[in-house]
């Protein structure tokens, strides 16, 4: 039964990937670039959902984990001339290592303390780049994945290449994650989230389970970080500001932190917001200071509204409403 | 001039904790509410002081509706609740715990008078005024909890399991104090207890709750004499 389900999933991921492939050939470059950003956000948001929704831990500092991945990929590429594909694996591994350490700390901390520690990490870690010359200081490192292979044709643009790489990475990681969550580990996490004591009584090592959740989440975040720096070409402290951690958290809350299936909602929203803000600012003829700040305002406002009114995300809301209706029908 | 509870029903989520309960407590009377664990005694008491919300029914004290008010307002009508488990704040001193009870009272002179009255009832509290409450023994803490409730100059005292976790000798002492207070200060007391025998001994009348419903009620002596009550709650 279990096997059947995951192979079914695989087919869906293939179909979805094919649709994306077709789409990438039909739209203009700006959309393709945005598509690549959406794919990166999907991965990053999934890593937060994995942590917060499935294991009940909150990290305000995922930006720092993304940074670890991005920096290690860039250093591997620039210093050791490692092939690009391997760079992405290195990003996953090194962030996962960071995740183990953070997870070990997290297993001893709860709620607000963990939130504060990760917040301090998000603010402090990127500035480390200024300490070690190999990390390129404030202006950072170039992370260049190279031009698309010539076999794809003359017309094949750089951004389409980014889109292909990040979409493929997103599809693979989403498929892996949904399988992990369906496994024993996924069930253990959910058990630990809803009732830690009961889970411990049931023989689940919640401490180890938490560290594992942190590790996997960090690894996925590292991949997102490397992809993000690919799409912006550089890795620098300013690419991972606190605002990034907050936007990712907003994306996760918008998607609904208790389920992976809404992840597109958050990712599309995050990419769409600057676009919408631009339209609004132009429409009302806003000044530069408003134009610059409108996206941030919209992200934060959405975050608050979601936490207040749809705390479990639109997908879960929809499901529970349906479930309620079913119960009412039965009655 | 009495506590009137009629057809009171209280839910905890989907569970009905108190079901259609009615009884009356006359002024100056000490009523024991007894019953086994989970009978709804504590829920009943918490609802009377405004901590829980009722589903149906009514409860009035001297004509004041108790059901749609908040605890901080109900106490201003002379209803004082000592919640379960030595209701003191351990981080505060004995003196501060006592002053807490009178904090809403405007007249500071009267509060000072109340405090000296209470320290004369519980001399041990008087000796330990500047100690933190968590340095007190269990019995002393219970006295402090009652003392705090008395500081608000109540007319009716709602006591939730004052005997819980105390040594038998201390329990006896506490019960005696409650009885004395009722008589000397003219207080009305609703005493929720699992120690049914001890409670009924000092009470004027009693209400027996079973699974949220009133099983029997009547004068304390009649309840002690009731063979069913004896078998179920008094253990002989």
């Amino acid at each position, binding site marked *: 039964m279990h096997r059947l389900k995951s192979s079914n999933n695989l087919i869906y991921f293939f179909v979805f990937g094919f649709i994306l492939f077709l789409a990438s050939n039909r739209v203009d470059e700006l959309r393709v670039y945005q598509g690549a950003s959406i794919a990166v956000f999907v991965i990053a948001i999934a890593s937060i959902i994995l942590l917060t929704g499935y294991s009940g831990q909150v990290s305000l500092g995922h930006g720092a984990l993304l940074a670890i991945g991005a920096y290690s990929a860039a250093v591997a590429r620039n210093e050791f001339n490692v092939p690009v594909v391997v760079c992405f694996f290195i990003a996953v591994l090194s962030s996962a290592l960071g995740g183990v350490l953070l997870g070990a700390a997290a297993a001893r901390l*709860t709620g607000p303390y963990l939130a504060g520690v990760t917040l301090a990490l998000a603010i402090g870690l990127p500035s480390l780049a200024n300490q070690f010359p190999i990390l390129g200081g404030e202006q950072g490192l170039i992370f260049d994945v190279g031009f698309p292979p010539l076999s794809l044709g003359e017309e094949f643009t750089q951004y389409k290449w980014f889109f292909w790489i990040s979409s493929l990475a997103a599809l693979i990681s989403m498929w892996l994650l949904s399988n992990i969550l369906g496994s024993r580990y996924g069930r253990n996490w959910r058990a630990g989230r809803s009732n830690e004591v009961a889970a411990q009584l049931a023989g689940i090592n919640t401490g180890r389970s938490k560290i594992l959740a942190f590790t996997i989440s960090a690894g996925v975040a590292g991949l997102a970080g490397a992809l993000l720096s690919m799409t912006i070409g550089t890795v620098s402290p300013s690419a991972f500001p606190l605002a990034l951690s907050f936007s990712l*958290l907003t994306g996760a809350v918008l998607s609904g932190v208790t389920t992976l299936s809404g992840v597109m909602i958050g990712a599309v929203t995050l990419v769409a917001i600057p676009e919408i803000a631009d339209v609004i600012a132009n429409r009302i003829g806003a000044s530069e200071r408003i134009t610059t700040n409108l996206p941030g305002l919209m992200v*934060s406002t959405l975050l608050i509204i979601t936490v207040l009114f749809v705390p*479990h995300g639109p997908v879960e809301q929809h499901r529970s409403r349906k479930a309620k209706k079913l119960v009412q029908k039965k009655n | 001039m009495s506590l009137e509870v009629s057809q009171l029903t209280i839910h905890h989520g989907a569970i009905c904790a108190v079901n259609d309960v009615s009884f009356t407590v006359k002024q100056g009377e000490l009523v024991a509410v007894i019953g086994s664990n989970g009978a709804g005694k504590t829920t009943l008491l918490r609802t009377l002081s405004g901590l829980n919300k009722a589903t149906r029914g009514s409860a009035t004290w001297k004509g004041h509706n108790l059901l749609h008010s908040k605890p901080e307002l109900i106490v201003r009508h002379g209803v004082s609740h000592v*919640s379960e488990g030595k209701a003191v*704040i351990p981080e505060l001193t004995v003196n501060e715990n006592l002053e807490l009870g009178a904090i809403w009272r405007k007249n500071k002179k009267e509060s000072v008078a109340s405090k000296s009255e209470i320290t004369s009832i519980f001399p041990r509290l008087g000796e330990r005024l500047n100690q933190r409450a968590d340095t007190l023994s269990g019995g002393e803490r219970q006295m402090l909890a009652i003392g705090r409730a008395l500081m608000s100059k109540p007319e009716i005292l709602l006591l939730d399991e004052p005997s819980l976790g105390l040594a038998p000798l201390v329990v006896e002492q506490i019960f005696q104090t409650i009885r004395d207070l009722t008589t000397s200060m003219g207080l009305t007391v609703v005493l929720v207890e699992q120690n049914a025998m001890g409670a009924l001994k000092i009470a004027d009348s009693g209400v027996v709750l079973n699974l949220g419903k009133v099983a029997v009620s009547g004068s304390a002596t009649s309840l002690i004499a009731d063979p069913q009550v004896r078998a179920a709650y008094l253990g002989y």
Partner: protein
Amino acid sequence: MIQFINTLLIGITAGSIYSLMAIAIVLVWRSTRVINFAQAGMALLSTYFGYEAMVHLNSFWIALPVAMAGGAAVAAFIELVFMRFLLKRSAHGAISGVAPIIATLGLLGVIRALTSSIWGGQDVRIVGPVSNVGYSIGANTLAFSPLKLLILVTVIVLVLLLSLLFQKSSIGLSLRASAFSPEIARLSGIRVDAVRTLGWSLAGASGAVAGMFQTVNGNGSFSPDSIEFSLLLVSGFIAAVIGGLDSLIGAVIGGLVLGLVISFVLMYISSSLFFIAPFVILLIVLFLRPQGIIGAKAARRA
């Protein structure tokens, strides 16, 4: 030697400002059991209020109370229309533990974006009421000026006033009782909701003073993306945790420790490490003394 003394002096002055921020965090934590990550944002907004008062009335001694009143009002507003609603709504469910944290972050974002769009994201400039030129000892100039003295004295006075309020007045008793046991407080006739709003207001006012002093103590300028703001953002929380989250004295000690650590790292180690230093201190404290330097038994561990 003079460099060491100056580093010490800079650290103490900065630390006293962080203490105020930590006190604000502690006050909110005590009244609603929420870590208010928006506290620095509220301080920022209040500082802009102070700046407006400065522009129109040109007196620091009017601007400071204006900022405090503004901070108190903003905090009360947030508690009344927002936190109450939120805490009621998010009491249950999978993210009940994280919802308040996320919500205060959202608030921080809203406040930052709003202040940036209203005041343009450029530095506010507030000139202190007294000179910031350091005292001289012989040929050396101390990193300690009349302004820094004023800051230190004001912080000490405020901390004393607050502890007097908490220890000696009935309002203070209400605040403490509501923090330790809201139920007993309510049964004693305390309007706990109003007391919570009061706790938030005090925090807002305290944060406002921190913001105003952080502004004049720097180069007199402050903006949503300045280092000074980021320092307030992390230092308040970290100092509060170092101090045990529940204790005012702890918050003061935590603030001073943090101020000194940052100052010495900045001077003797590296200017790029001074943001990671607070994080390291925080981790060390959490691992060695999870209850904080002045901590009760309150568990912060699972």
